[in-house]
């Protein structure tokens, strides 16, 4: 049977195609896949070398809009690792609050997009509406809905006012009932079970071989989380669970993200209620000669920054590694052998930070485009409909 190559368009509903993923297909089954990235490469590592340490946090914040706290957090941890020093406890709590609130918003964003690809537009609208409450919390705490600019080497830049805490607690509490409803809607829906279980499976050994991170690897049974393995911030101050499952399919990845949202809400509540007094900044004056490594658990996995200093006020080298860089190549394991209609949801299941991933493009063997990105999303939704009708659904 002849092989044809299929283009996978942007999985984002609004993005236009750039080339990126190349699928080779036999009939309906994907037999090979390749990818081309570089559409978001902005030379940030080189830019950092011309900025002073404090200004680098502003540059790295703009690497990715969705996980915009994880990069400054990892960078400030890297600078603080160059020489022995201690961040004040109040700053650790504030950092944890910002990081976990961002995790909630990031997972809700993913949930909405996944709903969109599967044809559950109500899930999309509900998840993004809940997100707005979280963005309000961020605006109250930091002044902005995204790009919070809260981090600096040595502590945080702004304090949390006591009068803001009850408002934020109320907003976090207010999303929990709807979140619970979304959880049941996803976990108990037989059509979603049929659609997502067993789809895009990555085995435990594959997760290890690719050094996959975050929910992508925890879905395959790899019980690793930087917040547990190498604690930082305030994560050791309260009990919370790491969510691990063992099937490695798209369903598990969705379950992990939903359950992690509840854990994050727990952590944020604890930190807001028990916020200790004290200074918020260790007031680092100079960064001495040396190297530092900072790694933290972003919503997508471990973000890793390496900083080298020669005693001046600029880094000699700043290496940035977003979690999607390690998760992305796992498509080689998860998409082969699957059908075209599942391709978009499998690729979306690693929660690629677009900025790290970019687009997908597929070239036809003869150069002709067979399906566009919109077509692939349509195929995905059609499969959901077929399954629903097959189950005699409403």
């Amino acid at each position, binding site marked *: 049977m002849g092989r044809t190559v299929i283009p996978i368009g942007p999985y984002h509903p609004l993005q*236009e195609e750039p080339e990126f993923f190349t699928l080779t297909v036999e009939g309906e089954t994907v037999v090979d896949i390749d990818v081309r990235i570089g559409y*978001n490469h*902005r030379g940030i590592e080189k830019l950092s070398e011309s900025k002073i340490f404090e200004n680098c946090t502003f540059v790295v914040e703009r690497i*990715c*809009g*969705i996980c915009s706290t994880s990069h400054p957090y990892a960078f400030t941890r890297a600078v603080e690792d160059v020489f022995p020093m201690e961040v004040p406890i109040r700053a650790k709590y504030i950092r944890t609050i910002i990081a976990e609130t961002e995790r909630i918003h990031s997972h809700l964003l993913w949930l909405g997009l996944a709903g969109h690809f599967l044809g559950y537009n109500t899930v999309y609208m509900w998840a993004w509406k809940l997100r707005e409450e979280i963005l309000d919390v961020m605006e109250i705490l930091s002044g902005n809905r*995204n790009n919070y600019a809260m981090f600096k080497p040595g502590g945080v830049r702004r304090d949390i006012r006591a009068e803001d805490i009850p408002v934020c607690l109320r907003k976090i509490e207010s999303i929990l009932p709807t979140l619970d409803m979304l959880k049941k809607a996803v976990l108990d829906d037989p059509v979603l079970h049929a659609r997502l279980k067993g789809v895009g499976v990555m085995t435990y050994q594959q997760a290890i071989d690719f050094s996959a991170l975050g929910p992508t690897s925890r879905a395959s049974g790899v019980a690793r989380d930087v917040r547990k393995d190498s604690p930082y911030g305030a994560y050791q101050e309260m009990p919370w669970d790491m969510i691990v499952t063992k099937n490695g399919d798209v369903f598990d990845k969705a379950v992990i993200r939903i359950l992690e949202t509840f854990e994050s809400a727990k952590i944020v509540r604890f930190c807001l209620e028990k916020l200790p007094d004290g200074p918020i900044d260790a007031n680092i004056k100079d960064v001495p000669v040396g190297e530092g490594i900072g790694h933290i658990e972003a919503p997508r996995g471990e973000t890793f920054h390496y900083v080298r200093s020669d005693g001046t006020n600029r880094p000699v080298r700043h290496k940035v590694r977003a979690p999607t860089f390690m998760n992305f190549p796992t498509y080689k394991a998860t998409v082969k052998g699957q059908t075209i209609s599942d391709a978009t949801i499998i690729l979306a299941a690693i929660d690629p930070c677009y900025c790290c991933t970019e687009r997908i493009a597929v070239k036809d063997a003869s150069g002709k485009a067979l399906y566009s990105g919109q077509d692939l999303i349509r195929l995905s939704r059609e499969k959901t409909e077929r399954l629903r009708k097959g189950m005699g659904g409403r």
Partner: protein
Amino acid sequence: MSLKLKALLKSPWVFHLSTGSCNNCDIETLDCLTPRFDIERFGMLLAGSIKHADVLLVTGSCNRMSVERLKTLWEQVPKPCLVVAIGTCAGSRGLFIDSYNCPHPLDSIIPVNVYIPGCPPKPEAIMAGVVQLIQKVGGA
């Protein structure tokens, strides 16, 4: 501007394009569709393909790989088409002005009608910018 454009602007089809951004502006633009901001009450609809676009919403700092695509897409858009540059990156590349991979600002590649600064601009700002553009063109 022409009568044709005025007519188009009664219910403009917007098409969103990213030329290498951190996606914050893209997410805020998407937020405009959600119930809280609801851009559809201004008659704006999302076009499924660039060939139906009346208004192009562009984000990102035009890095080398995206520029080729941008130029191809601009050729495909039926003119007249208005261009809205959302975010500081689309306006002038912002802090990526010295980046080795972002050599040109957006307005040197395609003509831009409206700049909405911000990093990212809030959904209210995006909607205000687009509405201002429509009013200005409609009244011109």
